[in-house]
Each structure stands twice: as structure tokens, then as C-alpha cells.
């Protein structure tokens, strides 16, 4: 009996030990993460240190966009800390970050955010990239009462789930393509037939459904509304269907790859249309690699380097101007990373900026105070207008920020360049049409 008792004890001990090991290591954190900003380490002179926690897709299918977003955030943190931090009543506060690799995988996000919120003692959270991952992390932020600024997470639905501490930096998905409808109505009032072809994922479906609804309200006829599976590389059947429907304009798309493939295959098949407006892909600089197939393709962007939001405009609109100008941001980013910032990078920077503004206004790192400050925030930044919905139904939803529409055009030298073609007050060129 004694021997048996001993054996039981041994097995329990073994189990707990194994569990403990797992606890330590199965989060990919450990060494790969927790690279607190080096400038932040020096803030030992009575100042406070605030920790910002997030996950990023260092690996996995979303790693490109996610990395840019992280770059933007890190740039913001470096600038704040170099400037001595944010002045609060109890002295300046500086920032450090703790982050983990989420592998673009929903299974791990909750585990990692829980770790950030509890063990790592993060004061604030930033969302992962993409709406799906953000939805999973929002539950944790709310549960552990941490303010989370979301960026790269456009779906509206995440802000109608009763969260009170989650704030969206991006323009929500429902507004992505409504501007395109306005643009077509304004430029070519005779066109009535739209085809909406979208990737069958959460974000693109939300965008397209909202766009269809809006287009119908505006008196358009939607002759084709069709989804295609994520990862589609052969658009032949879809393109045949588009040709059969004979629309005046084609709206839709999804993410970079399917969008650019769709544009390429449309060109190869010589499909004629007045307007082609696609999500996500066109604003990416690499879209230009399509060559002639890129000409006249338009797309909504959260932000473009040319977008010139100014302190004057803020004053005119009755808003507070906050943060660097667009030019300052672009040059700082280029110095740091050697490439032009994409809107994902700007979004990452803005997430930090919004947090900074709220902390300054609150004069505290306390969740309740920062939440109150965020609720009342109404600022204009280089990224655009930032203001949040404070209603119970859609708390935290971005209501200030507007999309700009870019279009690839050939300049006089024959190079492909992005021009802003909508909204009217921001445009740098007239929209080119027809596409073919």
C-alpha cells in the first residue's frame, strides 16, 4: 500500500512538473519577445514605465502587414521615449513593449493576451493584425480591464459586442467602399450597373455587404454579388460571370494577393469596365508590379503619404491637432526602416499616438481615467480625424476617420504613380476612366 501511495505521489509530481514546464515554454514568448525598448530602460529616474502589450504575426500568413504595423508602433514608442516620455502629475512616463508571435493563429491569441494582461503586467494593449485575431483578443482585454487600441482590425462587428475598453483606430469596414460608390455617382452619373466580387472572409464580406446596401440606396443596380474563397488563384469562372453580367463598374476584392491576381487576370482577359475599385491591394506599393494591368485600378486606403491633414484644417473643423505632420512621420519612418510607410505602418503609429493623447489628457495610467479620455477624444492627426462612438451599441467604433481613394495612373514620365482621386477635397488628380 505504501508503495502504491508513493507511486501516486510520484505521478502527481511528474504531472505538475510537466505542466509547469509547459507553462513556461509553450508560449513562444520567453526570449523571442519582451524586447523592451532600450530607450525605455533608462527611465529609472523617478519616472514611471508603462508597458504596452500586443501580439504580432512574426510568422504565419499575415506576417507582412503585421510587421509593418509593429514597425509603426515601435517608431512611435521610440519618439515618445526620446522626447522624455509623457508628462503626468507623478512625473514623466515612458513606454516599453512586450509582444509575442501569434503565428496569425486564433488558437494562441487568447493565451498570449492573458499572459500579457496578467503576468507581464501590461498597462495597455494594442490589437493583433486582422479582425479575426482582434475579436479573440478583445474578450481578454475586456476581462482584465485593459484599454486596447485596435489597428488593422476594420470589421464593425467587433464593436457591437458590448466591449467598453476597445477602441478602433481604422475606419470601419462598412465605410471602405461607400466612398467608391459616391465617387462613381459624382464622376459618371449615367453609370448604374455595379458588380461586387469579394473574398469570402469576414472583413471583405462585411465591406461588400455594406457597399451593396449603400449602392442600392443610391439608386445603383447590383448586377452581380459574388464571393470567392480565400486563397483563390484562378479567377476564370468569376471573370466569366462578370463578363456575362456586363457591369459598368467592378467593386470588391479582399486582400493583397487575391486582389492583385484578380486585377491581373481581368486585364489578361481584356474585360472592359469603367471603374475597378479593389480593397487592400491597390494602395500597396508593390501593386505597381502588375504593370499596365494596374493602370486605373483604384482602391480605398486608410492613409496615404500625400494626405495633407494640417493643423489649420483641424482648427477649421473645430478639432484639436495632435502629433507630427504627415511629412514628419514619413521621413522619420523612412530613416528608421528604409522604406516608405504603408497605411498599416501609419495605423500602428497612430494606435500609439491615440494612446499617448488619451494618457496626456487623463494625466494618469489608470484604465478608468484613460477610458474617459478616449471617450472624449476628438483630434486630427497626420492619419486623419480620430473620434470614437460612445453609444452603448457600438462603443469604440471609429466615427471620425475617413478613407481616401487612390488610383494608379501613368505620369508624364511614363511611371506608375498613385494619385488620390477621392474625396474631392483631398484629391491630387482626376479619376481615370474607363479602365479598358
Amino acid at each position, binding site marked *: 500500500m505504501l508503495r502504491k501511495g508513493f507511486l501516486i505521489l510520484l505521478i502527481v509530481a511528474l504531472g505538475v512538473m510537466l505542466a509547469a*514546464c*509547459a507553462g513556461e*515554454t509553450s*508560449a513562444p514568448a520567453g526570449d523571442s519577445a519582451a524586447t523592451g525598448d532600450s530607450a525605455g530602460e533608462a527611465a529609472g529616474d523617478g519616472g514611471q514605465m508603462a508597458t504596452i502589450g500586443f501580439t504580432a504575426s512574426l510568422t504565419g500568413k499575415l506576417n507582412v502587414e503585421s510587421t509593418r504595423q509593429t514597425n509603426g508602433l515601435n517608431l512611435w514608442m521610440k519618439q515618445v521615449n526620446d522626447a522624455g516620455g509623457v508628462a503626468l502629475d507623478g512625473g514623466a512616463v515612458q513606454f516599453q513593449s512586450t509582444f509575442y508571435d501569434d503565428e496569425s493563429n*486564433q488558437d494562441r491569441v*487568447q493565451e498570449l493576451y492573458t499572459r500579457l494582461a496578467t503576468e507581464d503586467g501590461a498597462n495597455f494593449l494594442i490589437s493583433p493584425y486582422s479582425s479575426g485575431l482582434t475579436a479573440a483578443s478583445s*474578450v481578454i482585454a475586456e476581462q482584465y480591464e485593459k484599454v486596447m487600441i485596435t489597428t488593422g482590425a476594420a470589421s464593425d462587428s467587433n464593436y457591437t459586442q*458590448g466591449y467598453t475598453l476597445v477602441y478602433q483606430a481604422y475606419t470601419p469596414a462598412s465605410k471602405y467602399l461607400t466612398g467608391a460608390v459616391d465617387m462613381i455617382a459624382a464622376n459618371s452619373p449615367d453609370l448604374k450597373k455595379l458588380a461586387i466580387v469579394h473574398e469570402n*472572409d469576414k472583413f471583405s*464580406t462585411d465591406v461588400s455587404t455594406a457597399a451593396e446596401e449603400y449602392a442600392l440606396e443610391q439608386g445603383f443596380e447590383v448586377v452581380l454579388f459574388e464571393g470567392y474563397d480565400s486563397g483563390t488563384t484562378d479567377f476564370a469562372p468569376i471573370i466569366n460571370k462578370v463578363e456575362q453580367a456586363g457591369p459598368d463598374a467592378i467593386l470588391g476584392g479582399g486582400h493583397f494577393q487575391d486582389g492583385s491576381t484578380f486585377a491581373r487576370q481581368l486585364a489578361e482577359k481584356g474585360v472592359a469596365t469603367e471603374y475597378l475599385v479593389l480593397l487592400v491591394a491597390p494602395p500597396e506599393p508593390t501593386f505597381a508590379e502588375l504593370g499596365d494591368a494596374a493602370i486605373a485600378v483604384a482602391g480605398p486606403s486608410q492613409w496615404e503619404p500625400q494626405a495633407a491633414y494640417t493643423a489649420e484644417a483641424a482648427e477649421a473643423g473645430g478639432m484639436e491637432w495632435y502629433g507630427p505632420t504627415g511629412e514628419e512621420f514619413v521621413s522619420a519612418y523612412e530613416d528608421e526602416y528604409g522604406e516608405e510607410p504603408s497605411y498599416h505602418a501609419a495605423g500602428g503609429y497612430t494606435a500609439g499616438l491615440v494612446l499617448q493623447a488619451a494618457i496626456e489628457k487623463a494625466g494618469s495610467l489608470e484604465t478608468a481615467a484613460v477610458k474617459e479620455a478616449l471617450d472624449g477624444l476628438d483630434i486630427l492627426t497626420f492619419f486623419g480625424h480620430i473620434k470614437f462612438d460612445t453609444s452603448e451599441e457600438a462603443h469604440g467604433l471609429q466615427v471620425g476617420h475617413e478613407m481616401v481613394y487612390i488610383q494608379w495612373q501613368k505620369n508624364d514620365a511614363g511611371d506608375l504613380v498613385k494619385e488620390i482621386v477621392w474625396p474631392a477635397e483631398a484629391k491630387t488628380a482626376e479619376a481615370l476612366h474607363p479602365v479598358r
Partner: protein
Amino acid sequence: MKKWLQPGLWIPLLLVAAFAAYPAITGSASARETMFTMIMSIGLASSLNILLGYTGYVSFGHIVFFGLGGYLGFWAIDELGWHLAPAVLLGGVTAGLLALLLGLAILRLRGAYFALATIGVNEAMKSLVMNLPFLGAATGMELNFSVYKSYGGPATALWMVYWSLAAIVLIITVVSYAVKKSKFGLGLMAIREDEDAAGIMGVVSSRAKTWAYVLSAVFPGMIGVLFFFKNGIIEPGSAFRLNLSIELLVMVMLGGAGTVLGPILGGAFYQRLRGLLLTSDLFKNIQLAVAGLLLLLIVLFIPSGAVGWLRERSDRLRRVLE
């Protein structure tokens, strides 16, 4: 009965209980999340083992039960306002029913044909759900945060989900042992060794296989509801993830197919190994390749897995380890 006191049962039970209790001892929410993943893997692998290990049918798409059960339970909570408990039952029943229907059909297929069919079922179900508006189609569904409040706030809710999972996995362990030691289980193992000979000996293989399939499907269906309730969001891609399905196979093989203890050790070891490889600078980028190499070595040299290997070493171990 005396057999309930056998080490073959209490060793795995204690091991699972020890894993489950670890976050409670430390009281750490982040340990809880880590262990959730591990215990979930153990539960799913043990369920799969009833079909794969005892009955000898390779299911590549077993995750379909996790996904479908999760979807139906989630829908009941979100749309019908059900409490978690009946929703978990609904998930289990749905998965069981699907297995029953499938069992009558595809279990007639043997070997590779069955394995292929299970992949087909998973993919078909995934594409089907993507076309069903009431399940949120491609966008999936999200839970309103207020749902957690009715369970005493989100913190309590998440601990409750964790303990429910632990309880279910303990039940799976008991069921797995009970099946192995029962007449039913003996019939399954006879089917695994030689289905035709088993039939000639009087084992009604079509019926036995179907019940094994149902049994191995019910628990993943229940676990699915818990997992997605905790996640607050469900999407076709995360519900019917073929990769996870195949990882489960690897876990069962690592630990030893057809043993009670094997899937438990396999699940724990696999998750731990993944963690180790992911954090190691050397292997971080090629962790999948290292895992693959390990799998290959096991398949080639220790096909009966860790527990099977130990059992082959000595008669004494064979009496202790099931």
C-alpha cells in the same frame, strides 16, 4: 469492481488531474490559458484514439466534430440565448448525430479510402457552413461580451469553462479506459486487428465501428463549444482546421495508439515540444521540419509510440500501463 482500482486507470486519471490542477495551485490565469490548450489537445487526442487506436480507422478529418459541435453550441448561446451547459450538450449531441449518419455511410470504406473520405467530410462541412447565413456564413459569429456577465463576470466564466473542460477530459479518460476494458472495446480491437476475422467470430463490426465513431465524436463536439465560447468568436477557418486534425494524429502516434495513457502523454509532449521549438532560436524557423523529422523517426522506428514501446519492454510495465 476491482478493475476500477487498476493502475491502468488511475495513472492516466491522476496525470490529467495534475495537469488540470496546476493553474489552480499557482492561481495564474496565464497558466490556465496554457493548460487549456494542452488539456484540450489531450481530450481531443484521447477521443480520436477510440477510433484510431482501438478500432484502427484513420480519421484525418476528425476536427469536423469539434467544428460542427462548436458551431451549433455557439449558435445556441448566441442566437437562442442558451446557457453554456445545455449548449455543450447540444454540441456533443450534434457531433454524435453527424458521426452516426456518417458512420452508417463512410465506415463501410476501409483503410486509405476511409481516411480520404474523412478529409472530404471536413472540407465539405467547412464549405457548407460558409454558405449558411444562419451560422454567419464566411464571417462567422461573435458573442456579445454581456454573455459572460451572466456567469458571474468574465473571470469566473473563463475559470468555469476551464474546469468544465478538465471535467470532460477526465470523463474521456475514464471512458477511454472503460471502453478498452469492456467487451465492446475488445470487439473494436478485434476489428482493428482483422475486421473480417472479427466478423467471423461474431463481432458485428458495422455496429461496433459506428458506436466507436459516435463515442469519439461526442466529446470533441462538447470541447468545441467550450473552446469557442471562451474565444468569443467562431469562424469556418478556425473551426474546421485540417491541420489541427492532423496534429491530433501525431499526438496519438507519439504517445502510443490504442493505449489510454498514450494520447495523454502524446498531447502533453507535443504541446510542450512545440513550445520548446518555437522559443528556441535555433529551431524557431524550422520547428515544423523538426516535428516532421521526429514523426518520421517514430513511424519508422517506434511505430507503437512511447507507451506502446514501454509496454513492449517488460511484462510488468504492460500490467501497469494501459
